[in-house]
């Protein structure tokens, strides 16, 4: 695989090879629209160790994809603006880097896989072109060499007849194959951090499993750190080391995966877990969370979850929002009543 050394990247000011591959500190993102300001991300923090898999869990619209885009630096701006916080790659604050250097970090050091590979791949270029482009633009390779590398990559992600298929267009691949292409694209430049945004949501269950195991395999081989963004608790359980649960732009619970499954400390997490259909509870009504997530332009006072929460008291309806309580040395939860929630099975 790629052993090229990107000289320029090593020259990043303040790069500390021993620092964590990724650290997000108190990130704030807002969308400024004509109808007001939408607070999409409100103080998200997490970190990622080498080889670790962190899952970010939450419903649609909770700000998890926005967080990912902010890390990648591909937020649509306007309307999106990062209003606060730091995103550190090995100690370097990416937000302070000039665009040219920031661009080098993308794909080289931090890469991303998108949810819907069909729309995320450019429909009018061949897969080979889109893969080879990376080598041509980042590594200065010729068109021919780029293509040769593209074939290798397709082989790597186990696409049969890679030599022929490299000339195909994205729509000519099946959903699973397309997602493999996406993965190949993300891995092309051998990044240290991979952000996978709902990588399997659009796929059949059987294919989902194949893709997840492929990802896990590649991650292990390369000792890559993985940020897995998903709303699927089942996927998380299999692969994640740690979980951050997001609600209305905030991390409301952060814990090792086993702890969360054993005893969620936030009513929202609890609700999510309960909404997984379980074979052993066949026949019972599925207890989903009532209501809808709030509009980000109009987040409720206090705890954002309070209108939907069965534990909610007056204190939850007043500012400030509940802080992150240290539930255990390795986990936190933003609920005034985490003890009750945790104890209540």
């Amino acid at each position, binding site marked *: 695989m790629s052993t090229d050394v990107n000289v320029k990247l090593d020259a990043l000011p303040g790069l500390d090879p021993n620092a964590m591959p990724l650290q997000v500190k108190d990130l704030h993102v807002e*969308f400024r*629209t*004509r*109808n*007001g300001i*939408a607070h*999409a991300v409100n103080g998200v923090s997490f970190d990622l160790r080498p080889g670790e898999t962190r899952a970010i869990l939450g419903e*649609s*619209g*909770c*700000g*998890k*994809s*926005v967080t990912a*885009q902010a890390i990648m630096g591909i937020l*649509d701006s306007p309307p*999106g603006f990062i209003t606060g916080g730091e995103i550190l790659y090995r100690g370097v604050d990416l937000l302070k880097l000039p665009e040219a250097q920031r661009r080098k970090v993308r794909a080289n050091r931090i890469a991303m896989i*998108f*949810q*819907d590979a069909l729309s995320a791949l450019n429909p009018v270029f061949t897969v080979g072109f889109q893969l080879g482009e990376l080598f041509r633009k980042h590594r200065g390779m010729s068109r021919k060499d780029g293509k040769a590398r593209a074939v290798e990559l397709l082989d790597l992600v186990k696409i049969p007849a890679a030599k022929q298929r490299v000339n195909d267009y994205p729509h000519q691949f099946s959903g699973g194959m397309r997602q493999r292409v996406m993965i190949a694209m993300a891995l092309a430049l051998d990044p240290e951090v991979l952000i996978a*945004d709902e990588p399997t949501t659009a796929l059949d269950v059987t294919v989902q499993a194949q893709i997840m195991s492929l990802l896990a395999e590649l991650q292990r081989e390369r000792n890559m750190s993985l940020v897995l963004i998903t709303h699927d608790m089942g996927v998380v359980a299999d692969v994640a080391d740690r979980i951050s649960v997001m609600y209305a732009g905030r991390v409301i619970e952060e814990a090792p995966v086993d702890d969360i499954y054993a005893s969620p400390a936030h009513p929202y997490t609890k609700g999510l877990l309960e909404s997984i259909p379980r074979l052993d509870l066949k026949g019972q009504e599925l207890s989903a969370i009532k209501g*809808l*997530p709030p*509009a*980000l*332009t*109009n987040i409720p006072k206090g705890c954002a979850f309070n209108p939907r929460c069965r534990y909610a008291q007056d204190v939850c309806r007043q500012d400030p929002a509940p802080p992150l309580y240290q539930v255990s040395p390795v986990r936190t939860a933003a609920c005034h009543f985490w003890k009750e929630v945790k104890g209540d099975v």
Partner: protein
Amino acid sequence: MSDLTSAGTAIGGAPVGAEGPVPDAPATGGKERSASLWADARRQLVRDPVFMLAFVYVLVVGSMAAFPTLWTSQDPRNCSTDRSRLAPSGDHPFGFNILGCDYYSHAIYGARPSIVIAIMATGAIVVVGGALGLLAGYYGGWVDTIISRLMDIFFSLPFLLGAIVFLTVIKRQNILTIALVLFLLSWPTIARIIRGSVISSKDLDYVHAAKAVGASNGRIMWRHILPNAIAPMLVYATIVLGAFVAAEATLTFLGVGLQPPEESWGIMISDHQVYFLEDPWLLLFPCGLLVGTVLSFILMGDALRDALDPKFR
């Protein structure tokens, strides 16, 4: 869909409250999740100052066409060559034309033919073009073949050339024939829009469901398929209204439009365009009215499309 899109949708959903949006910025949001497409579109349009301005202008012009006496008490046919091309004055804000007729009342009465032609032609293309498009799309097969070839014939006739040929041949150039020719040359576009829309919606599940419960073809077309096609048709019809107003003027310039003593903006413009160096107001007044009307229809069409097409939110 990524989260951003849903976030975007959610953004629009916030109740705006007393302050409302910034007044001079066109509102593009304003959706409540429960609201239907149409109610939602209406709300958005009402808040759009550009749309409202255009709408008011169209209303004004419409009232000129419908009730010219509301706007002027002068008789446009009261002419005297002694007053030829007198400049605008207090009593006669637009002055006099070359035959010495009051130009303001001319302009007011001139709205009617322009508007009537546009409305008649648009109505016809919507009804006939819509019906043919619906039939072609729904039944397919030989019905589609015949209608499609017919569409090809009229569609491939370059618009102005076709109009010139037809109108010189018809020879009787009045409101009816001009509307007819505009209709003849424009219906294929709307038929294509509808046909495409019908073909894409005819395989939708609820249409199969309706068929399964034994709904008649007519009912399926009317109740289940047509509503899907209404939005693009409406947008197109609005824009084409403006295009027809302009087309009337252009045909008149080419000598195949309305003939005097009929009064229309087209006649006023093409009669007086040669004087625009000497007496520019003779061209500017009717041209301004016409451009305003066309502009309004286009802007309304744009706003409608933005309102009806979720893609543009």
